[in-house]
C-alpha cells in the first residue's frame, strides 16, 4: 500500500506570517494518522490547504495520483477528500436527512430539470439517495433523528451527523478537525472506536487533528507534530511520546529537561 496523500513542501503565508512552513506528510492508504501541535501551530490552515479552502503559497499536494493544490473545494471533494470542521458547520436549518442528502451531491447525476417532469432516472436516484442517507444515519447511530432540524440535535449528535455528511460523498480520505472537541472522556473513547470502525468497515483513510492525547495515541498509526507551521517530529505514537522536541513544544523548555523521558516511554 502506498501513500494516498502526499504533501511536498506545502507553505502558506499570510503577508509576513508563515502559517504553514514546508510541511510534508505521507498518509498511507487505509491508515489512521494524526497531525498534532499546540494551539495556533497551523494545523487547520494545513487542512484548509489540502481541501482547497486556501491555495498553498508554495508546494504540491498529491492525492491519489493527482496534483490537487489550488483546486476549488468542490473539485477536491469530487476527487474523494471529505472533511469535518473544528466548530461544527452543519446546515443548521435543514433536517439531518437533508444534510446527508446534500453530502451525497457529488454522486447524483440527474440534471436539474429532470425534477420538473420526474423522470424515471430522477425518481430512482432520489429514492436511492434517501435510502443511503437513512443507512448512513443508522451507521452513525442517529436512527430516528433524521427529521430533526440539525441545530436542535444534541452536541454529540451534531458531531456524528457531520461525520455522516462527510461520509455521504463516499470519500477515500476523511479529514477530521478535532472531532472530540467538547466531548467528555467517555464520549471521546466511544468516538475513537467509531473512527476505527470507519477505517475497518469502510476502508477509508483517516487523517485527524486532535488535542485529546488519549485519542491520538490510542488510534494513530502515524503522527506528525506541528509547531509554528513547521514539522518538528514524525513517527509512531511511541516515538512521539519520547521525542524531547515534542515535549518542549507542548510544555516549554524547562519542563522538558525536568522529565524522565525513558521511563514514561516504557510505561506507554
Amino acid at each position, binding site marked *: 500500500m502506498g501513500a494516498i496523500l502526499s504533501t511536498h513542501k506545502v507553505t502558506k503565508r499570510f503577508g509576513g506570517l508563515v502559517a504553514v512552513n514546508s510541511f510534508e506528510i505521507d498518509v498511507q492508504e487505509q491508515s489512521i494518522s494524526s497531525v498534532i501541535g499546540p494551539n495556533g501551530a497551523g494545523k487547520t490552515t494545513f487542512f484548509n490547504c489540502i481541501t482547497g479552502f486556501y491555495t498553498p503559497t508554495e508546494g504540491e499536494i498529491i492525492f491519489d495520483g493527482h496534483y490537487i493544490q489550488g483546486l476549488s473545494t468542490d473539485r477536491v471533494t*469530487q476527487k474523494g477528500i471529505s472533511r469535518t470542521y473544528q466548530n461544527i458547520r452543519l*446546515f443548521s436549518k435543514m433536517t439531518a436527512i437533508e444534510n446527508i442528502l446534500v453530502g451525497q451531491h457529488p454522486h447524483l447525476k440527474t440534471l436539474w430539470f429532470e425534477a420538473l417532469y420526474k423522470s424515471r432516472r430522477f425518481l430512482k436516484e432520489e429514492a436511492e439517495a434517501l435510502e443511503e442517507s437513512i443507512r448512513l444515519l443508522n451507521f452513525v447511530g442517529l436512527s430516528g433523528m433524521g427529521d430533526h432540524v440539525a441545530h436542535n440535535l444534541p452536541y454529540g449528535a451534531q458531531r456524528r451527523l457531520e461525520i455522516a455528511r462527510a461520509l455521504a460523498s463516499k470519500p477515500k480520505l476523511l479529514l477530521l478537525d478535532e472531532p472530540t472537541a467538547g466531548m467528555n472522556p467517555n464520549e471521546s473513547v466511544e468516538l475513537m472506536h467509531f473512527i476505527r470502525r470507519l477505517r475497518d468497515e469502510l476502508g477509508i483513510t483517516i487523517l485527524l487533528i486532535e488535542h485529546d492525547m488519549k485519542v491520538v495515541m490510542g488510534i494513530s498509526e502515524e503522527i506528525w507534530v506541528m509547531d509554528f507551521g513547521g514539522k518538528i517530529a514524525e513517527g509512531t505514537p511511541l516515538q512521539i511520546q519520547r521525542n524531547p522536541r515534542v515535549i518542549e513544544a507542548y510544555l516549554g523548555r524547562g519542563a522538558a529537561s525536568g522529565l524522565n523521558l525513558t521511563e514514561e516511554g516504557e510505561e506507554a
Partner: protein
Amino acid sequence: MNILKENFRTTMLRFGLVGSIVALYLAAVGMIETFAPRMLIGTSITLGHVFLLLAAVGSGFFSARELKEHSLGITATAGFISGAVSSLFLVILTFVIQFFVIQADQGSIFKLREMFVNFSPTLLEFLTFGKGLILGNILLIGLFGIMGVLGASFSFLPKRIRKGWINGLAWVFGIGLFSENVGQIFREFNGTSLNKLLFTGKSLNPIAALLIFAIVFAAGYYGVKTATNNKWKTFSPDQQKQGRLIFTVLGILFLVALPWMVGLFLSQALFIIGMYVMMGLGLNIVVGYAGLLDLGYVAFFAFGAYTMGILTSTGELGRVGFSFWAALPFAVLAGVLWGLLLGFPVLRMRGDYLAIVTLGFGEIIRIMALSNWLASLGGGAQGILHIPQPELFGLVLDSPQLMYYLVVLGALLAAFVTIRLRDSRLGRQWMAMREDEDVAEAMGINLVQTKLLAFSIGAAFSALAGAIFAARIGNIFPHSFNILISMNAISLIIVGGLGSIPGVIVGAIILIGLPEMLREFAEYRLLMYGFLLIIMMIAKPEGFWPEKRRRQELKDERDRQLASQTAELEN
C-alpha cells in the same frame, strides 16, 4: 403589597403614555380623520373610531399582560386606567385645537395649522363626538377606559372564551370593513334579501354584526375547528385521499368562479395579486431558497414587459408585430438572459454587498429605459404604446376577469416549478448554499452553476409577470418599473414567511390585495407597510405562514413507534 402597588402604577402609566403618544400620532398624521368616513357598523362606528381606539386597546392589553398573574379585578382595572391614561394627549389636543386653531387670532404670528394641517375643527368634532369640550372629553376618557378593558380582556379571559372573542371581533371588523365588496359578492348570487339583512347602506347592520359575532364566537367556543380535525383523522387513508381530491376540485372550481363572483373591480385586484404571487414565487427561489438577497427584482419584470412591448406593439415602436403567445417565450428568455448577465458579476458577492449591487442594477434598467440612447427601441419617457391584448382561439382577453385566468395559470406554473425543484437535488443545493456557502462548496456543490440557476429561474417568473402586465395595461412607461415593485415583492415574501409557498400567497393578499381594496387610503400605504413590517419582525419573524420541513426518514407516527421498538429490541 407596596411592591404590587408600585408595579401597578408604573405599568399603567408607562403603557398609558405610550398609547397616548400613538393616539396623538395617528391624529397628527390625519389617519383618524381620513378613516372616519369609512363606516363599519351602522353609521356610528367607523374605521376612524377603530384607529382612534387602537391605542387604548393596545395599552390595555400590554398592561394587563404585564400584570397577568394578578386577579381579574386588578388586571381589568389596570386595563381601564391605562386605557383612560392613553387619552391624555388627545384631551390636551382638543383644548389646543379649540384655543389655538378655532379661536386663534387672525393676526397672531403663531399659526398652529400651518405646521399641523390635520389639527382641524372636524377632528375636534370627531374626538368630542360633537358634544362640546367638557362632555365630549368625559366621553372620550370613558370610552378609552372601556377600550382599555377590552384590550385587557384579550389577556385575562380564559383561553376557550378568548379565542372566540378575538375571532368574533376580527370577523365583524373584516366584514364591516369590506361591506361593499361582500355585498357585491352576494349580489352576484342573487342574494339581495341577504344583503338587506346584513347591510344598511355601505356598512354592516348592527344586528347582523351581533349575529356574526355570535356565530363566530360559538364556533370558537365549541372548538369546531379541532373537532373537524379530529373527525378527519378518524377517516381511513382511502377516505382521506378521496376527501383531498374533493377539496382540490372544489378549490379549482373556486379559483375559476372567483372573478365572476367578485365583479370587475375586485377582479383587477385579483389580477394584481396573482401577478405578485408569480413574482413572489420567483423571488422566493432567489431569496428564500438560495439566500441571495436581490433588491433589484423589478429589472426582470421590466425586461419581460419591454420585450413583450417591443415585439407586439402595434404602435410606431412595434416593428415585429408578434402575437402575445409568440412573444411570450422571448420575454421569458430575455428575463433569463438578464438573470445570467446579472448573475455573473455578482457571483462572488455575499449578503449586504449583493443587496446593494442588485439594487443598483434594478435602477440601471429603469434609467436606461428612460434614456435617449435607447429611445428608438423603448420609447424613452414616452414608453411603448398600443400593446395588444392576448387572444386565445379568437377570444380577446380584454377584461380583468379573463386576464386573471392567465395570471392564475402563471402562478400555478410558478408554484409547480418551485415545489418540484425544492424537493430535488437543486433545491437542497440552494438551501445548503443559503445556510453556509463555504461548506456547501466543500460538499462538492458548484456555486457558480447553482447561483446562476437561482437567478435565472427567479428571473423567468418575474419576466413572465412583466409580459402579462404589459399586455394587460397596454402602455408601458419607465416609471412603472420603479424600486417600489422590488420592495413590494421582497416585503410580501418576508411577511408571508421566507421560503414558504402558501406564505407568498398570504403575503400578496395582505400587502397587495388589501391596499388595492382600500384605495381611498393610498396615502397611508407605505406608513402601514412600515408599521406592519416592524410588527412582523418583532412578533412573528418567521412570517404568517412559515415553511414546514418535509419529513423524510419516518413518514408518520407509526413508523416512529416501529423504529423505537426495534431500537429497544436491539439493546
